[in-house]
């Protein structure tokens, strides 16, 4: 992996007018002495001992076979339960609670965002409604924040969305 480089990180923070650009933080976490010198050896030993345990339980042994059978049956059972549970009709609506929906509706009006687009942004990105809205009412004069909103809006157009899973699908 090639790093982005310190320059890029600083430039980006400077563009955001962030004080984090002033001094690079180190984190200041410390380590026990010579930790990285001994770690490879400890990992090799752990890998070797794991190998010994696995070899002591050959595939054809009675215990191993029964353990595999029980595990397989368990997985099949859990998968079936999970499948039935996920297909319960009420479950789709529980992505966001009614309170959260009302809150988003209210704030989307406040932030001049289409509520439906906001729901989709929350569902299709890893950001929360607060993340998206924060940029609107706290920094609505910033072009960069507008660009983020534009990006989020554009990104939901390109995501391979399962439209049945979107809350807007139920609302519209």
């Amino acid at each position, binding site marked *: 992996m090639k790093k982005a480089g310190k320059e890029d*990180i600083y430039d980006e923070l400077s563009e955001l007018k962030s004080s*984090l650009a002033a001094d690079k933080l*180190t984190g200041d976490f410390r*380590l026990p002495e010579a930790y990285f010198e001994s770690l490879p050896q400890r990992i090799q030993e752990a890998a070797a001992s794991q190998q010994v345990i696995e070899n002591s339980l050959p595939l054809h042994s009675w215990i191993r076979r029964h353990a595999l059978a029980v595990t397989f049956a368990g997985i099949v059972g859990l998968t079936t339960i999970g499948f039935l549970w996920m297909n319960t009709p009420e479950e789709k609506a529980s992505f966001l609670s009614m309170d959260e929906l009302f809150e988003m509706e209210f704030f989307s009006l406040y932030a001049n965002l289409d509520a439906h687009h906001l729901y989709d942004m929350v569902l299709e*990105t890893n*950001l929360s409604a607060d993340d998206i809205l924060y*940029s609107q009412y706290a920094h609505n004069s910033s072009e960069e924040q507008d660009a983020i909103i534009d*990006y989020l809006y554009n990104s939901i157009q390109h995501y391979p969305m399962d439209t049945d899973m979107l809350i807007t699908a139920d609302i519209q």
Partner: protein
Amino acid sequence: MGSYSDAELLKLFFEGDNPNYAFNLIVRKYQQPIYWHVRRLVITHEDADDIVQDVFLKAWKGLTKFRGDSGLFTWLYRIATNEALSLLKRKKNRFFIPILDVEKQLIDALESDVYYSGDEIQRNIQKAILALPEKQRIVFNLRYYDEMKYEDMAKILDTSAGALKASYHHAVKKIEKFVKKD
């Protein structure tokens, strides 16, 4: 040792006479970035140490089936991220702790960690980072501390580079807001 590329290391592992030696080289190449990535997520050295060992043990077991669809670096970071998040989740489930208390628990761990020596400013910023949602925290750490490109991050976190950029920018703003408030 540092001059081996990932492709050379994998070739050595699969085609060489001594896979143990090749794996040892892989550990030596990636132990530090993986450790620091995990440490910033789980905070304490003890947890980070456990996870790093698990990451490489999983890599050892899985390497024979590794097809190289993703790079070695991406694969290891992905295992490490999942392991760290699993540990945080296990802690939360084990003690039925609400999300906010998990953050508080991490901050307490930071305060009491004998292997943490940050001054007041560093400590405050660490607290601000710990107050971020988990995924945003990962994005911030990878970009700010590991100086990772968004494109590489996208491969690890399986998200688009643009979304990660947006997430990082939000994280920066949130950290500043937290620090000013404090």
